[in-house]
């Protein structure tokens, strides 16, 4: 299978102009600090992590909302850093997004019909109005909404309906990749399953490739084929979902899994899985960036930063203590 999206050694640093850091150097927020991964056509790849992990920045880089400080992003073999104007328009039609807050991602002053039709009007301006309407109707039905909502405004719809509209907008005119940023975390629990099933159905029917960002491992486990766990800008563990959850190797992954509340009364948890607070990408510790919170930390962890290495072809870990 070929990779649709290939990210290599991606870096994104944000300079922070305020007071100088510890050694009198200007402070830099190392949001993404060197990551590499690729997504194969038709699969779902997820980046999981807590706040400050950098996963949102990765999504923004892929969506060309930010320029990388270094590294390469290849889409269908084309380098995203050197796209012609034609290429850009084509890229925009191929790679779409669904954001977390459905209400915020829909313009409150636009009718549903215009919201869903917007990608067509921008990227396929040659289509006549009737054609656009037809496609819009088709798409709304596809996501389980009645075409009657076309004349409504976002505030007249429920949360679940709004997210369906956002999904319709993302899928209209068949893109090839869809970036899903926390697609269900802002929804009521009883509707999450509906949307997750819908996303799975659509993926199958349209042959889409998904890139998902989330913090809820249970949801990710359900919808993604491969997962990368991020911490402070780096991927610390990556692999096939089943394998990763069956045998988590990195202490952070283990901590995340242990910290996740499970609806199983009486579950015995690892004694404090983590200490301290999530670090800051402004002030990274020396060596392994996770060592200040790691219960298995050794002196060596403070010196050298671990590199992502394979334990088997589908599982990679960045930890000094894991034999690869």
């Amino acid at each position, binding site marked *: 299978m070929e990779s649709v999206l290939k990210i290599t050694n991606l870096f994104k640093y944000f300079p922070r102009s305020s007071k100088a850091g510890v050694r009198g150097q200007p402070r830099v927020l190392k949001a993404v600090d060197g990551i590499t991964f690729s997504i194969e056509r038709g699969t779902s790849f997820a980046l999981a992590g*807590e*706040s400050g992990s950098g996963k949102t920045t990765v999504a923004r880089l892929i969506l060309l909302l930010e320029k990388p400080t270094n590294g390469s992003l290849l889409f269908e073999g084309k380098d995203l850093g050197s796209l012609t104007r034609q290429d850009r328009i084509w890229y925009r039609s191929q790679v779409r997004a669904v954001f977390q807050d459905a209400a915020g991602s829909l313009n409150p002053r636009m009718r549903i019909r215009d919201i869903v039709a917007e990608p067509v009007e921008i990227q396929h301006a040659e289509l006549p109005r009737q054609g656009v309407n037809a496609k819009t109707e088709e798409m709304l039905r596809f996501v389980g909404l009645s075409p009657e909502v076309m004349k409504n405004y976002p505030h007249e719809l*429920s*949360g*679940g*309906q709004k997210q369906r509209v956002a999904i319709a907008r993302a899928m209209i005119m068949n893109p090839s990749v869809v970036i899903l940023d926390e697609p269900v975390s802002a929804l*009521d*629990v*009883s*509707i*999450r*399953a*509906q949307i*997750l*099933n819908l996303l*799975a159905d659509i993926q199958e029917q349209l042959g889409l490739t998904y890139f998902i960002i989330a*913090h*809820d*491992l*249970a*949801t990710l*486990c*359900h*919808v*993604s084929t491969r997962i990368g766990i991020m911490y402070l800008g780096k991927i610390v563990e990556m692999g096939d*979902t*089943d394998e990763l*959850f*069956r045998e988590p190797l990195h202490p952070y992954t283990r*901590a*995340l*899994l*242990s*910290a*996740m*509340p*499970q*609806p*199983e*009364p*009486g*579950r015995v*948890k690892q004694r*404090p*899985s*983590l200490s301290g*607070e*999530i670090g800051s990408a402004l002030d990274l510790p020396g060596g392994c960036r996770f060592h200040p919170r790691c219960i298995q930390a050794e002196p060596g962890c403070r010196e050298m930063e671990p590199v992502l290495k394979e334990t088997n072809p589908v599982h990679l870990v960045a930890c000094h203590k894991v034999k690869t």
Partner: protein
Amino acid sequence: MLLSVEGLKTYCYTKGGVVKAVDGVTFSVNRGEALGIVGESGCGKSMTCSSIVRLVPQPAARIVGGRILFEGEDLIAKDESAMRQIRGNKISMILQDPLMSLNPVYTIGNQVAETFKVHGRRSSRTSITREVVDVLRRVNIPSPEQRLKDYPFQFSGGMRQRTVAAMAIAGEPKLLIADEPTTSLDVTVQDQFLRLLKQMQDQSGMALILVTHDLGIVAETCDRVAVMYAGKIVESGDLQGVFASPAHPYTEALFSALPRLGQRGKRLFQIKGEPPHLLHLPDGCAFWPRCHKVLDRCREDYPPMISIHEGRRAACWRLKGGEA
């Protein structure tokens, strides 16, 4: 029994009509125990909490019926100055967003000290400072003496929430109400905070009402649970019982619809429809349009609370002897 809520009714008077946010809710909390109230947005769980401390946003919303017996006395019958004595001292509350709960222009030390002063501790400045440091240490804030001059924005989300918790227990309350206290926190930070709540309970014997939409959190923190839907409690009982064999179809559906680890690729059980708009509740049982076990009777009459056995109750016609 520390708190006994009987038939509580809190209605909101809006332009569109009367919203029965809390419509005849009955439950109790014993000393030292942790009760979880589970439900989605709009089910009335937050309004129930506001009603207990009598901080319902008037005049739009009002408590219109029922009794709230705290240590034998009806809180609804009390006037505002009596309630002011109770709030913070006997019953305390933490809300979802710690950034909103803290005033950005005062230091942490100042705000925590304020809680002590408000509770009428007429002591010298040094002894209040000592108490502030003490309570901050109790909520596991590292080096509290050095953090008194920090402002809320300098604290991480987890530390802010812990500060709010410190302010809540400053008055040594007998009951702490926590309304979605970890929703805005990362999962590892959430884990720490929930452990803190348990620790606080162990240390002081205080009772806890934990309001959440997350069944996993309830499983790990609570002794008993009440499930709310559309302003009413639909099921309640001891934790083990409810989780092992939920009696109400809504509870059952919630469990089934949860994405779990290790279930990749399988289609999730989905609850059809959406949570109801409180202005347009159906006749009969509020859940019937979405219920996978609906009977004819459900469409006409609202089921009464039926006792299953010791302590466990649920409002479902299927439980009425012989109707299954």
